[in-house]
């Protein structure tokens, strides 16, 4: 059975881990898993997330708590703390175009060696990347992105670990679930079974379903 409690979840983490966190401006981010990670006090984390959340919400909590060494995201605009820490060198930030970020995560989960995209051509995103001309158009070669752990938020999760996401909470969650060695899902609701036609993350990508301590 994949069900573990928050304490077991916390015991899993170590300094220096890379962690993908689902969510888009914290919508679709599992706050209980973030809170538990804050309690672990593990540090030097590499966090991969669409954005920096808000100072007191989502991955912003980990940043405030000085647990993050490097943030890989598409924007940090709504988290002034992240901006300040980046400016004074206390947080390394790698900014990646959003479409490229999600596609790199997908490529990581899908076993691709990379993909060619026109996004970023003629900008500083080009730096350090291979440029390729295919059929007379210029592209950047973008490489796959993987991580140790994915923290996922499921709206409905069945006992097998199948996940359905509600409304705009889906965002990066399904791709991250595929791109990490260990995927933890926080279920907003646990149900017995789900219709196999509508499952968005099949159970084989979910290693643990995390629930409150008893």
């Amino acid at each position, binding site marked *: 059975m994949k069900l573990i409690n928050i304490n077991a979840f916390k015991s899993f983490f170590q300094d220096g881990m890379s962690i993908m966190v689902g969510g888009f401006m914290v919508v679709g981010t599992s706050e209980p898993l973030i809170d538990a990670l804050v309690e672990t006090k593990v540090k030097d984390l590499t966090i991969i997330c669409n954005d920096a959340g808000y100072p007191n919400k989502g991955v912003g909590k980990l940043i405030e708590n000085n647990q993050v060494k490097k943030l890989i995201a*598409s924007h*940090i605009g709504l988290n002034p703390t992240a901006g300040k820490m980046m400016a004074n060198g206390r947080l390394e930030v790698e900014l990646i175009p959003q479409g490229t970020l999600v596609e790199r995560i997908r490529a990581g989960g899908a076993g691709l060696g990379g993909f060619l995209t026109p996004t970023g*051509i*003629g*900008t500083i995103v080009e730096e350090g990347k291979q440029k390729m001309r295919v059929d007379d158009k210029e592209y950047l070669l973008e490489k796959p992105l993987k991580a140790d752990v994915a923290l996922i938020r499921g709206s409905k999760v069945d006992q097998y670990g199948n996940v359905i996401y509600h409304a705009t909470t889906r*965002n990066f969650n399904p791709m991250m679930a595929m791109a990490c060695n260990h995927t933890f899902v926080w279920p907003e609701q646990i149900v017995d079974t789900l219709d196999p036609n509508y499952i968005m993350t099949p159970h084989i990508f979910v290693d643990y379903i995390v629930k409150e301590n008893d």
Partner: protein
Amino acid sequence: MNNIKDMIARRVALELKDGDVVNLGIGLPTLVANYVPKGINVFFQSENGLINLGPKPEAGEEDPDLTNAGGQPVTILPGGAFFDSALSFSIIRGHHVDLTVLGSLQVDEKGNIANWIIPNKMVPGMGGAMDLLVGAKKVIVAMSHTNKGKPKILKKCSLPLTAKGEVDMIFTEMGVMEITPYGIRLIEINPQYTISEIQEKTEAELIIAKDLKKMELIHEI
């Protein structure tokens, strides 16, 4: 109309064509949704994962699971669909978005645009802007003509680019411009300004359209 932003948004809305898939940037561009012309049906896409984006919900009706790309509560209209970010950006980069409207810090006469970073000052990140600029079939910049009196329409962007040569049109409170291989052509003018006043606030040299029109500002909704 109560301010410059609304005025620009009203004019941009006239560019919407029936059936268009449209992505609006945060800020001024969002206002365009308020002025969709009568008889025109467009589908707003939000890059966080939905199509048929609707207006703000009534107070008390907000669903915390349903927001736009700015994290604000929204609604979904009939016929809409939710999807993940990979599909959302397949829509954007696969040229399935007919029109995107974005704000900007700078635009230049080559259609270059800079709107994601002011080095050592403001580093919000590019979010989905770089993808939208290369992927959307048509790119409209909607912004105030100047920043505290300083031109934003330049010969050459000085800030790091968001995309190279992707801008098609610029809409400001002074007029409507299109990017051509020969430079920026002023095609509509707000009659509150003269051509020379506009040129004075524009670093790039403007080509004045032979059939320069009065900026259409008002339309029925």
